[in-house]
């Protein structure tokens, strides 16, 4: 049998196993770990499907940041296990979602229709050479703008719900701080590369921002930066800068035939500007989802 078929089979089985374990498991800690495993396996699946852009986003946001958030949330709950009734309630929901997905998948044409050809035909006018970036920031730029707005709203919700006013700083060991001192500069470098690479290969603002946010989460976990109590004015400006820059570029274009159509002669520069602003702001924004919720460690405060 073909090695690739075996690999894909094992991958698919692993995905189902991790998903079932994460949804139906009794132990919450185990469920969260399986959720992270699911995200990593999903990353591999996207690579196998030749979608490296989605794979990057899945690894950084799906498995990494969401995993960190879930683990953090776990520290705040008292019950280690989920009740049986609640667990089995998930099952019909999951089956329904799966059935809807399967129905949609059947309805989709096998070949993806006229869109890929239309994208490659318009690519020379987009200002970039990577089709995914062209779609995200030029042809469907308003989708991206609204996604950023949704994330911003999510952060505002978190900031509104958090009660502690004093920023928390975790205690940590020198070993971990030394590791972070080596890793964080490399992560900054990787984020810069992802931002720059987005114009002609997989990468872009979201992936770069997720790496920046991961660096901030790492620094917070090893106690080198503190969490957000109430974000300062400077921080709020940094969060708003990217979306505002995007809006400032979008506003003069508002009178044109379609929404957010970038003028072809400046499209490359405008996309780079938008992406640079979004990388900074999304980095703070995604990090903020974690840093705003940072609590003091129950073990460190309770036992030492």
């Amino acid at each position, binding site marked *: 049998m073909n090695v690739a078929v075996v690999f894909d089979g094992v991958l698919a089985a692993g995905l189902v196993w991790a998903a079932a374990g994460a949804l139906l498991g009794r132990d919450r800690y185990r469920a969260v770990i399986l959720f992270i495993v699911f995200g990593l396996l999903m990353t591999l699946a996207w690579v196998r499907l030749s979608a490296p852009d989605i794979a990057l986003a899945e690894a950084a946001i799906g498995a990494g940041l969401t995993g960190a958030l879930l683990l953090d949330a776990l520290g705040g709950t008292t019950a280690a296990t989920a009740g049986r009734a609640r667990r089995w309630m998930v099952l019909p929901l999951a089956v329904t979602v799966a059935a809807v997905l399967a129905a949609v998948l059947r309805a989709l044409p096998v070949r993806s229709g006229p869109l890929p050809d239309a994208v490659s035909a318009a690519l020379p006018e987009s200002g970039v050479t990577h089709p995914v970036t062209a779609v995200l920031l030029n042809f469907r730029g308003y989708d991206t703008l609204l996604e950023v707005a949704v994330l911003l709203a999510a952060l505002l919700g978190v900031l509104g719900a958090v009660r502690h006013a004093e920023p928390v700083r975790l205690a940590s*060991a020198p070993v971990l701080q030394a*590791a972070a001192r080596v890793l964080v500069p490399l992560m900054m470098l990787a984020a810069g590369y992802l931002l720059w690479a987005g114009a002609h290969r997989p990468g872009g603002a979201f992936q770069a921002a997720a790496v920046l946010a991961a660096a901030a989460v790492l620094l917070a976990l090893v106690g080198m930066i503190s969490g957000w109590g109430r974000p300062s004015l400077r921080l709020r400006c940094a969060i708003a800068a990217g979306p505002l820059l995007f809006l400032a570029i979008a506003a003069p274009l508002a009178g044109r035939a379609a929404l957010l159509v970038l003028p072809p002669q400046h499209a490359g520069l405008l996309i780079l500007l938008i992406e640079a602003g979004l990388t900074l702001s999304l980095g703070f924004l995604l990090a903020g989802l974690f840093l705003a919720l940072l609590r003091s460690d129950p*073990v460190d405060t309770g036992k030492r």
Partner: protein
Amino acid sequence: MLEFASTALMLLGAGFFFAGTVGLLRFPDVYSRLHALTKADNLGVGCIALALALQADGLASALKLLLIWPLALLASAAVSYAIAERAHALGTPLGDAGADDPP
């Protein structure tokens, strides 16, 4: 020759991963499981990165593959320290089969 060396390193790496996995499943407590796991991380990843670097087309991608090794070494050393330290702080005893259960 290069192909042979690469295959041999790959097999050696797989061997370390296998031993590490068996150790992870069979060892009695957190600390000895960590010991097994870091062997797989440190030596297994190293062998496989080296094997892939031998097959890489071009020096740049070979060096990128080799860069994975020290980064994995650093991360695995720091993370296993963190896990062991936390287990110790929580009072996880040595040699207890149920010791990996989360608090």
